[in-house]
């Protein structure tokens, strides 16, 4: 069981111009995982997500969700299948004229849920998302985070096997984003629901995704487990996203020449915590100053970057560089961003 996209493409015709939103893309999302798709706006991730519940139909190719070929469904069959594919949105998309209770009731009505069980189901869902006291509130009286919780409760109402998240935290502040992401992770682990999320923020991927796919111009240009994708980005777009997190750039007042170099080193796994810089100080006759540094924990594995300014004789600098290159778990990293 999985979500399998096979050679899907999507082209639009806008004012006589053909736009290729997706180019013959294939992707498999495993059952029970959290798969994050990251890309800039216009990369096609939103279109890709909407293929999974057929809000958009592919121009060619196949979309198979847990054994059902969506292309073969029409009318009521498609409608009923969609009830098992939850979706949440950046702008929450709640019915403003309905209370929290009625918003969730709406999708239960859609699935002809047993009337006698509706109230119980809604209370259960609101407890799950931590909004038990907001049953009768209207969306306009809720904060962004609370609205998204209602969105999640609504998406889960009909016991879906898949949850699609369309930039679900992009309209939220960082703290609220964290709590919503935690909730999504809990839902994934406790209910076993496969989650596909799209975002333009690497933070989101880092926080919840098991695997990541990087999208650019209608293609998945890179994919893999989150740690290796972050520690060894290959595609320029991926490098850009990693750079966004570490935000390293050579300070403008630093002269770079053969006696003064800026080196960024990358610590992988457990080496991130080792007392490495101390060794450099001890073994080399160089002036070493730290310009920038950061350690991120991805799935509890540290990934650290340290930017050093090294001054000394060219030979000594060269010796230091080869020492770094030979150290286990340490690598010299490129600076990914353009320097302003």
């Amino acid at each position, binding site marked *: 069981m999985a979500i399998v996209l096979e050679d899907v493409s999507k082209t639009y015709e806008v004012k006589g111009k053909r736009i290729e939103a997706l180019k013959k893309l294939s992707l498999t999302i495993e059952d029970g995982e959290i798969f994050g798709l990251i890309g800039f706006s216009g990369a096609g991730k939103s279109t890709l997500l909407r293929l999974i*519940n057929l*809000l958009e139909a592919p121009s060619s190719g196949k979309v198979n969700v847990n054994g059902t070929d969506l292309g073969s469904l029409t009318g*009521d069959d498609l*409608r*009923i*299948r*969609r*009830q098992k*594919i*939850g*979706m949440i*949105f950046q*702008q929450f*998309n*709640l*019915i*403003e*004229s*309905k209370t929290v209770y009625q918003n969730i009731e*709406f*999708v239960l*009505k*859609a*699935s002809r849920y047993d009337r006698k069980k509706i109230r119980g189901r809604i209370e259960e869902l609101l407890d799950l998302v931590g909004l038990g006291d907001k049953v009768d509130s*209207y969306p306009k009286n809720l904060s962004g985070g609370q609205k998204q919780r209602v*969105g999640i409760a*609504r*998406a889960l109402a*009909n016991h879906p096997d898949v949850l*699609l998240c369309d930039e679900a935290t992009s309209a939220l502040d960082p703290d609220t984003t964290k709590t919503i992401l935690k909730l999504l992770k809990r839902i994934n682990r406790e209910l076993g629901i496969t989650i596909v999320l799209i975002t333009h923020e690497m933070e989101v991927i880092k926080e919840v995704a098991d695997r990541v796919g990087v999208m650019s111009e209608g293609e998945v240009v890179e994919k893999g487990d989150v740690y290796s994708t972050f520690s060894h980005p290959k595609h320029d777009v991926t490098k850009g996203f990693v750079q966004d997190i570490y935000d390293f750039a050579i300070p403008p007042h630093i002269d770079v020449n053969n006696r003064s170099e800026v080196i960024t080193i990358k610590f992988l796994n457990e080496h991130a915590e080792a007392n490495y810089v101390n060794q450099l100080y001890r073994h080399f006759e160089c002036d070493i100053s730290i310009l920038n540094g950061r350690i991120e924990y991805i799935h509890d594995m540290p990934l650290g970057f340290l930017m050093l300014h090294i001054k000394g004789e060219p030979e000594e600098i060269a010796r230091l560089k080869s020492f770094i290159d030979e150290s286990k778990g340490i690598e010299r990293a490129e600076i990914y961003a353009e320097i302003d």
Partner: protein
Amino acid sequence: MQRLTEIAPLLYRALLETTLMVSISIFFAVLLGLPLGILLYITANPLLFRIKPLNQFLGAVTNVIRSFPFIILIVAIMPIATWLTNSSHGPVFASVALSLAAIPLFARLVETSFNGVNTGVIEASIAGGASLWLIVTDVLIPESKRGITQAITLTIISIVAFSATAGVVGGGGIGDLAIRYGYYRYDTVTMVATVVVLIIIVQLIQLIGDYLSQRQEGN
């Protein structure tokens, strides 16, 4: 002043006629205009029930009726009105033409307020597996309650204005009184009195309409 007391019974009768015509017409405008507005909207919306030819056909019919000068419309549909009401004059007879004019107007206003409904909410409803019917009754209509209330207000006021012309077929009403007594007979007092009554009616309808639509917002 004396003239005012003389025309009081006339005014009263005209007021009843206007009320009758407006009531009948707004009833049919909503009864038939709402479904027409819904059809205009859903047949244009790619997320819902897009059927371009049907949408163009309905749009064309709506526009044609709305293009008619009201006086011509009254005359043009006289045979149908006669057949429907089994009479050839009077407020009920005039209401047929008034309803016919009000239906497309109301439909277009409803369509416009549906256009104001957040597309994202409709998308979310479809993603949730809701049927078209459920989306119409539980999303479109409740989400545009305010716009629909305003559409009803505007349509009623338009019917009041149209009804002045209804005198041609003996519809009576306040506007007709203004034309017959005030304009044709140079009876300034009656003309001013009727116009004042009309202003008060329109103001009242607008006030009530605004109050009701604000209450929709207030939940």
